[in-house]
C-alpha cells in the first residue's frame, strides 16, 4: 500500500514522470515556437541544463521580504502540481480515484496561482505586486470558464464527480468531444488552460516587457529552477486533464499507444500554436473576453449537455 | 514662399533687428520684452513649429537662438536673444506659450546657467540624479579631457 503510493507519487505518474516529461515537452514547445519564427531552436537537453544550472547558482533573497514565504512558495506549488498530476495520472493510467476528486483538483490548481501571488508579493517588489494582482484577476477570468467546461463531462456522464467514472462513461459511450457541447467545452478548455498556464496571449502576470517577469522577478537560483520546473510540469498536467475529460483517456495497448501520443501532442501543439500567433492582451480585455464571451458560450455548452446534445 | 517671410517682416518688422536673410532662413534678433509677442505670432498665427533652441557663448554675452520651422514653406525663422549679463543671465521663458520648449529650456538652464523666468518646471533635465551634482545655481562642472 505504502510502496504503491510512494511509487505513484515519486515515479509514475508523479514526480519523476511529470518532471521529465514536462521538461521534454518544454523543449518541444521551444522547438516548435522556434520553427514558427524561422529559427533553429534549442537542443534537446536544453531545459534539463537550464534546470540544473539554476540549481547551481546563487539564490538571492530579498532582505525585506518575508523569507519563509518567499522560499516555500515555489516548493508548495511544486508539491501541489505533483499531487494533481498523481490524481490525474492514477485515474488515467491505473483507473483509480475517489469521489469528488475533480473538485479537489480544481481547488488544488487554484493553489498554484495563490503560491505565485504569495511568492511574488512576499518579496515586496512593486512589479511583483502588480503581477500578483494580475495573476488573481486572471484567475477570476479563467476560473469561471474552467468550472463550466468541467461541468460538461460531469453532466454528460450523469453527474459523476469522479474522474474514473467519467473515463468509464467515455469508454462506454464515446469521447465527450464527439458531442456538440463537448466540442465547445474542449475549445474553451484549451483557451482557459492557456490562461491557467499563463502562456501567451495570457502571459499578463509575467509580462516580461512590462513587469519584468512579474511575480518571478525576484527569484533566482534554485527557487527559480523550481518555478521553471513548475511551469513545464503544467505542460503535462493540463493536457492530461483535458484528455481525461474530453478525449476519452488512453487505451494503452497496440495502436492505442500511438493514439495516446497523438492526442497528447495534438493538445500541446494546439497550445503552442495559440501561444505563437497572439500578442499579449490587456488584463481588462482578458477579463472582458472571459466574462462576456467565453463564459456565456461555456454556459451554452452546459445547457446543451443538460439537454443531452 | 517669400510671402511668409514678407508677411512676417510686415507684421513684426518693428520688433526685430539685425536680421540676416539667407535662402529659406531668417535669423533676427529680438529684445526680451518683444520675445513673447514674436513667438506668439510665429507659433499661433503662422503655425510654425519650434524645432529647437541653441544656446551659445558670444562676445556680447550668452545667446539663445530659437529655431521656428514653417513646415509648409520650408522657411526657418530664428529669433535670437542676447543676454549681456554673463554672470547671471536671465530671459523670459517661452515654455508657457510653446509647450515643446519646456525640455530645451530646462536643458539650457541646466548647462548654461540661464534663468528662464516663468518656466513652469525649472528643474534639471539630464542631470537630475547625477552623482556629481546638479541644480540650477550649480551647473554641472566638467573636467576637460585631453
Amino acid at each position, binding site marked *: 500500500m505504502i510502496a504503491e503510493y510512494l511509487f505513484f507519487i515519486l515515479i509514475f505518474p508523479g514526480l519523476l514522470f511529470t518532471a521529465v516529461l514536462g521538461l521534454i515537452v518544454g523543449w518541444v514547445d521551444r522547438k516548435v515556437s522556434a520553427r514558427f519564427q524561422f529559427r533553429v531552436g534549442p537542443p534537446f537537453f536544453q531545459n534539463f541544463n537550464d534546470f540544473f544550472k539554476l540549481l547551481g547558482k546563487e539564490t538571492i533573497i530579498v532582505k525585506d521580504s518575508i523569507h*519563509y514565504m518567499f522560499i516555500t512558495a515555489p*516548493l508548495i506549488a511544486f508539491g501541489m502540481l505533483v499531487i494533481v498530476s498523481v490524481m490525474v495520472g492514477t485515474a488515467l493510467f491505473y483507473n483509480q480515484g475517489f469521489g469528488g476528486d475533480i473538485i479537489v483538483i480544481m481547488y488544488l490548481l487554484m493553489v498554484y496561482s495563490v503560491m505565485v501571488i504569495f511568492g511574488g508579493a512576499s518579496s*515586496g517588489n512593486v512589479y511583483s505586486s502588480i503581477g500578483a494582482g494580475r495573476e*488573481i484577476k486572471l484567475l477570476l477570468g479563467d476560473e469561471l470558464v474552467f*468550472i463550466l467546461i468541467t461541468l460538461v463531462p460531469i453532466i454528460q456522464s450523469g453527474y459523476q464527480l469522479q474522474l474514473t467514472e467519467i473515463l468509464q462513461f467515455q469508454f462506454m459511450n464515446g469521447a465527450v468531444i464527439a458531442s456538440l457541447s463537448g466540442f465547445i467545452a474542449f475549445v474553451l478548455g484549451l483557451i482557459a488552460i492557456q490562461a491557467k498556464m499563463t502562456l501567451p496571449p495570457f502571459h499578463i502576470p509575467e509580462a516580461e516587457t512590462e513587469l*519584468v517577469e512579474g511575480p518571478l522577478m525576484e527569484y533566482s537560483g534554485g527557487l527559480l529552477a523550481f518555478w521553471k520546473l513548475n511551469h513545464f510540469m503544467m505542460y503535462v498536467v493540463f493536457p492530461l486533464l483535458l484528455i481525461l475529460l474530453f478525449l476519452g483517456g488512453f487505451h494503452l495497448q497496440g495502436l492505442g499507444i500511438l493514439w495516446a501520443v497523438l492526442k497528447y501532442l495534438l493538445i500541446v501543439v494546439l497550445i503552442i500554436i495559440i501561444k505563437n500567433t497572439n500578442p499579449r492582451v490587456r488584463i481588462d480585455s482578458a477579463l*472582458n473576453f472571459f466574462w462576456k464571451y467565453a463564459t456565456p458560450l461555456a454556459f451554452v455548452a452546459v445547457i446543451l449537455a443538460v439537454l443531452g446534445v | 514662399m517669400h510671402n511668409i517671410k514678407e508677411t512676417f517682416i510686415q507684421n513684426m518688422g518693428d520688433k526685430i533687428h539685425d536680421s540676416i536673410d539667407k535662402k529659406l532662413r531668417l535669423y533676427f534678433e529680438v529684445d526680451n520684452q518683444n520675445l513673447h509677442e514674436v513667438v506668439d505670432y510665429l507659433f499661433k498665427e503662422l503655425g510654425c513649429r519650434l524645432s529647437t533652441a541653441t544656446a551659445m557663448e558670444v562676445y556680447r554675452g550668452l545667446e539663445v537662438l530659437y529655431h521656428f520651422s514653417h513646415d509648409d514653406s520650408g522657411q526657418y525663422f530664428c529669433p535670437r536673444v542676447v543676454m549681456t549679463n554673463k554672470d547671471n543671465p536671465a530671459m523670459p521663458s517661452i515654455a508657457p506659450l510653446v509647450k515643446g520648449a519646456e525640455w530645451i529650456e530646462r536643458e539650457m538652464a541646466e548647462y548654461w546657467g540661464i534663468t528662464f523666468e516663468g518656466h513652469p518646471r525649472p528643474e534639471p533635465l539630464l542631470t537630475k540624479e547625477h552623482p556629481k551634482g546638479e541644480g540650477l545655481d550649480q551647473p554641472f562642472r566638467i573636467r576637460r579631457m585631453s
Partner: protein
Amino acid sequence: MADNLYLLIILVPFFIALVNLILPVNIRKILTFLALLYGLYLSYQLYVVQPATENFYFEPVFAADQLSIFTLIFIQILSVIILIFSLKGLEKQIERAFFVLYPMTVAFCNGVVISENMIVFLAFWGMSGITLYLFALLGRTADTPQTAKKTFIIVGGSDAFLLMGFVLMGFIHAGNEWSLSAIHISLNSGWAIVAFIFVLMAAFAKAGGFPMHTWVPQFSKDAPVESAAFLPASLDKLLGIYLLARMVTTLFSIDLLVNMIIVTLGALTVITAVMMAMIQHNGRKLLGYHAVSQVGYMIMGVGSGSVLAFAGGLFHMINHTIYKSNLFLTLGSVEKKTQSNNLDDLGGLGRVMPITFIMALIGALSISGIPPFNGFFSKWMIYQGLLQKTAELTAGYQIWMLVCLILAIFGSALTLASFMKFIHAVFLGQLPENLKTVKETVFNHWLATGLLSLLCIVFGIFAVQIPLRLFIAPIVAEQGWAVLGFPGLYKPLLIVLLFLVIFLIGWLVFMLTRNIRYDDVYLGGMSPSEKFRVLGTEFYNEVRSMQPFKALYDAAEKRFFDVYELGKNLTFALSGLLQKLHPGQLQLYLLYILIGTLIFIWVI
C-alpha cells in the same frame, strides 16, 4: 444534577453577568472565563447525558436534540476562545460593559438553542438581539449610533416577523401546543407560506442572508472587533442557521420549489456579498461582507434538501465560525498594533508579525476553500450534495440548480480573490515606513487565533473522524434520513502526507544546493523606496470599472440594494404623505370623518 443542566447552562453565565455589574474589571475577566469554561463542561455533560425534556407547568420548555447540543457546544467553544482574545488588549472605556454583555449574550444564545417552547425561544431570541445592539453601541467610530440603530431595526424587526410567524404557525397547527418539536407544517396553504417566509426572514436576518444582510458589514466595521468576531461571525451564524436547520427539518415540510428558492437565495447571498467584499478598502468591512457571503453556502447546503449537502451546510456553519472569528481576531491584532484597519495604510506586516500572518493565512485559505483546510471539506460536501440532488431533477430544474452551483463555486474563486487582496494589502507587499517598528502581538491574541487555526487544520484533515462522526452524523441520523453516505471519499490526510513527501524532496534539493545571499529589491538599478508600491486594494479597479459591474457597484454604493435603506425611504415617504394629509384644517378632518363613516357603513 442532570435535571438542572438546562437551567445551569443559561443561569450560570447570566448570573455571572449580573454579578459582573458591580465587580472590578479583573475579577470580571476571571469570573467570565470560569463561567464559560463551566458552560463548556456543562454542554459536554449534555452531550453525554442527553437529558429528557424539561417541563414547567406541563409545558415543555427546554429540550435538547443532537442539533441543539451540537450548536450549544460550538457556542461554548467559540465564546471561550474569543474570550481568551478579549482578556487583554480591549479598550479601557468599553472593558467594563464588555464583560457584562459577553456572558449575558452567551446565556441568551444558550437559551435560544435549548428552548423547546416557542415563547421562550422568542424571548431569548429577542434578548440576544438586544445584546447585539448593545455591543454595537460599544463601537468607537463616528458611525456607531447609525450602525447600532440599523442593526437593531433589522434584527429587532425580524424578531417581530418571527413572532408573527410563530403565531401563524400556532394557528395552523392543529393542536394548541407551543412546543417546537411538536409542530410540523406542510406548506400547502397561503398562511403556511406566509409563516414560512416570516420565520425565514428572521433566520436570514440573524445569520446575515441576502437580502437581510446589510447590518453585518456595518456592524463589523463599527463595533469592537472582538464583538464582531463574537456575534456576526460566530454566535449569530450559529443561531440563524440553527433556526434554518430547524425549519427545514422539523418545523416545516418543504417541497422542491421551496428548496430551489432557498438555494437560489443562498447563491445570491454568496455572489452579491463577495462582489461587494472585493472592492472594500476597509478590512473589517471586507470580512463583514464575507461573513455574509459564507452564509450563502450554509443556506444552500441546509436548504437544498439533499442529505449530504445538509450535513455539509451544518459543517460549513461551524467551519465558518472558526475561520471567520480567526480572521476577525487576526485583523483585530493588526488593528491594535497599527491603529488602522484601512487596507490602504497597511502592508508588509508579514515581516514584523509572522505569527499573526500565518494565522490569518490559514483563515484565508480555509475560507477560500483551499484543501486541506476545513472550509474546503464542507464546501466539497455541499457541492457533491447539490450535484447528487441535481441528478434527480428534471432538465429545467437541473439548469436552475447548476446556475446556483456555478455561482457558488465561482463565489469561492471570488472569495479567494478578495482574500488574496486582503492578505496582500495587510501582510504582503511593501511595509510602510511608519509601521517598521510594529511588534508581534500579545500572547493571548495569538493563543486564541492559534487555537482557531488549529481547529481549521484539524477539522480539515480529520473532518470525517472528528466533526462528522461526533456531531453531524448523529444529527442526520436523528432526522431519520439515510446515514451520511459518500459516493467516495476525499482523503485529506493521505493528500497532506503525499504532499509533504514532495515538499520535503523539493526542500531537500533546495537546501542541498543552496547558496543564499541577501540583497535589496531589484528595481532596474534604482534603490528601494517607500513610494514604489502598489496597493492590494486597487487590484480590482478593472473589475470595478467594467460594465455591467460598474453600474451595479455604483448602485450598491448608493445603497440601492439595502433593505434597510429602502425601508427607511419608504417609511419616510409614507410619513411624508401622512404629514401632507394633516394640514391642521378642521374642515379637512371633518371631511375625513365623514368619508370614514361612509366607508364604515358601506362595509357593514
